């Protein structure tokens, strides 16, 4: 009876299609993996095959200063974007009433996150440089990059708060805690692992940012590590000084540099930048895994 109903050919065909699709997706994945690995290995090889320590020196012949500028700029940018982004996320998750305003706000944030970074750079130039009458400086760069980071941090915070078990909030309200006490003492600590991931990913994005910094942080760097006066334009810790980052250095070295080993320096910068981003992303995973385990009592 069953033999008459089940079409053996149809079954065969379904199985064949299934095998074909499985193989197909493996091939696609393989191609992507191959491309990524090739690029990764090429960059590392090009960067390090003629490596010598003086190339990392903290002066004009090395890229140490650019490396320092890159990390310092990321820190400055996070100092702005993390609190502001988190506040925006908290507002959207806990305070905003669902409705037109929230929809518009969300749309703005989405638009902001897909803004071309050169546009943000020119906006930053106009507002932080021209309107303030200052020279290129790290602070302006950090603020411009913050505009790019904000959406990511805000939406990660909102998602993190929204996905918490409803029992946390009920439990806290049930004990007579106020809304802010509940957010500050219960919800935020529980959401921190996820928010941290967003912040570190935002940092990773900042590391490779170039266009937004070109007209804000500037394309030159002149640091004296002997300087002890933080207001001096050559003091490394002065945020109101121009500071070229690694990504900008690569751009400069490959387009307008005149020195002999510019190509090699650019390659090395690219390799170091790649490793830096890798370290950031891996640590984001590790930290959030650790925090999740910790907060669940494992």
């Amino acid at each position, binding site marked *: 009876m069953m033999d008459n109903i089940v079409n053996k050919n149809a079954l065969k065909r379904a199985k064949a299609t299934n095998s074909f699709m499985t193989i197909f997706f493996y091939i696609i994945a393989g191609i992507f993996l191959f491309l990524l690995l090739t690029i990764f290995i090429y960059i590392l090889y090009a960067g390090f095959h003629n490596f010598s320590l003086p190339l990392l020196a903290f002066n004009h012949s090395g890229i140490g200063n650019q490396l320092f500028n890159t990390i310092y700029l990321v820190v400055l940018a996070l100092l702005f974007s993390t609190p502001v982004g988190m506040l925006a996320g908290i507002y959207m998750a806990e305070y905003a009433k669902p409705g037109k305003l929230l929809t518009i706000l969300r749309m703005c944030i989405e638009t902001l996150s897909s803004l071309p970074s050169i546009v943000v750079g020119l906006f930053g130039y106009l507002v932080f440089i021209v309107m303030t009458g200052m020279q290129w400086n790290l602070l302006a760069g950090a603020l411009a990059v913050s505009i790019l980071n904000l959406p990511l941090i805000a939406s990660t915070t909102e998602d993190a708060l929204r996905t918490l*078990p409803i*029992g*946390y*909030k*009920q*439990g*806290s*309200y*049930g*004990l*007579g*805690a*106020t809304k802010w*006490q509940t957010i500050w*003492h*219960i919800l935020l*600590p*529980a959401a921190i692992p996820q928010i941290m991931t967003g912040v570190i990913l935002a940092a990773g994005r900042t590391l490779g940012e170039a266009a937004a910094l070109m007209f804000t942080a500037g394309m030159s760097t002149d640091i004296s590590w002997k300087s002890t006066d933080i207001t001096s334009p050559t003091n490394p810790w002065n945020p109101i000084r121009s500071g070229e980052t690694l990504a900008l250095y690569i751009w400069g070295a490959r387009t307008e540099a005149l020195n002999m080993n510019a190509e090699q320096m650019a390659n090395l910068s690219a390799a170091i930048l790649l490793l830096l981003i890798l370290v950031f992303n891996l640590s984001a995973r590790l930290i959030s895994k650790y925090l999740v385990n*910790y*907060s*669940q*009592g*494992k």
Partner: protein
Amino acid sequence: MNNAYEFSVKDLGLYYGDFEALKHINMDIEKNTITALIGPSGCGKSTFLKTLNRMNDLVENIKVTGDIFLGEQNIYTDIDVITLRQKVGMVFQQPNPFPKSIYDNVAYGPRMQGITKKSVLDEIVEHSLRQAAIWDEVKGKLGKNALSMSGGQQQRLCIARTLATQPEVILMDEPTSALDPISTLKIEELALQLKEKYTIVIVTHNMQQASRISDKTAFFLLGELIEYNETSNLFTRPLQKKTEEYITGRFG
């Protein structure tokens, strides 16, 4: 107003949007008793429980009519919601300890009331855990994360956490429905001890549980309070036909 009652509910109605979830409820709840609320799913018993500490305020589009008095105070006009919830604590269906240490879970309520002195907090934590009959199991490991405990322990911790705010009333919303039989028994024994000092209102699906621990039982159906009586009477000589049908298992 008769202040011998813990709660006096006067002509309470509640709407979710257009849906009338509670209809003209009148009910007095006595002090130091256990009152069980029973009825089939969706009958309004949990909704009723949540109006007693205004947890329903968190739901959007809700409208409450009528009055509820805690002692002599109208809970909507005479008392602010924070104070109300400190006086009327709540234990939920799913044990919901915070992802913090056992100590911090119990100390949370008092801390939010502004108590910061370590010695005072230590005392409250120990006293509350003892009252919730879980002190002996956790005394050496108060710093451990509460989520590492078993479900039954978590629920008793949640009871301790509620006791720490020194409430008058404890509302329990099906507190044992997620627990195994042994943990259930412990919670029931605990409820019987706690009624010496507190008034307990418990929502339960389990009619044996209602008859085992409660003094009075209220039967809800489709948003109406059908029958409210001494537990022993309600289960042996129900006055309403619908009550009889429900407790004999003809629907539900």
